[in-house]
């Protein structure tokens, strides 16, 4: 299964890319995070502390147990600072 993975703000900077296409067998967001962290230390530095960032699946905020079935786009980003 191929998923578009997007990164924003300091997560984007640590990983060095704004987006990529990831081939994954993970069934949940948490599984995808673990797969990315295992790649190299850039991902580990960006994504290891789950409490420091948020996740959206197909542009809706979700938690780490969210199922990836039918999901086409996952985004990782810091807590928002709008307004």
């Amino acid at each position: 299964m191929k998923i578009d993975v997007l990164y924003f703000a300091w997560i984007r900077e640590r990983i060095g890319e704004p987006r990529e296409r990831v081939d994954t067998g993970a069934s949940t967001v948490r599984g995808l995070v673990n797969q990315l962290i295992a790649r190299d230390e850039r991902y580990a530095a960006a994504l290891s502390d789950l409490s420091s960032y948020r996740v959206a699946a197909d542009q809706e905020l979700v938690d780490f147990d969210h199922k990836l079935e039918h999901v086409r786009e996952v985004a990782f980003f810091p807590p928002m600072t709008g307004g």
Partner: protein
Amino acid sequence: MLIRIQPEPFDLARLLDGFGAGAGAVVTFSGLVRDDTGTMVALELEHYPGMTEKAVTDIAAKAQARWNLIDLAVIHRYGRLPVGEAIMCVATAARHRAEAFEAAEYLMDYLKSRAPFWKREIGPDGPGQWVAAKDADEDALSRWG
């Protein structure tokens, strides 16, 4: 209901022209780029195109339904915004003042913590710190149940 996500400056005065016809109360909020340290030249706002529009529309629709608003507007900018310029504004129109105030505060609380924008300070030598989200802003959401 008017919602705009744009890099360009906006004109609140023009937005308010004719806004809230039939209402008894109109509230506006404008957020401006503030330089607390004396060394900031701008804020850079990154956002999540696509999700931003959805999130803001969803927040606005909830406010409109909850307070039965006569009119509502949200304009939120992104990109490089110099000190002193407006970052965003909301406007609400309702029959009575309590509804207009509450809806504007609700919009601000949700835009602050649920709209996918990230702010970074730009100093004279270029990009500086990302602005950290405040626990108090997240806590503010609890008052809306």
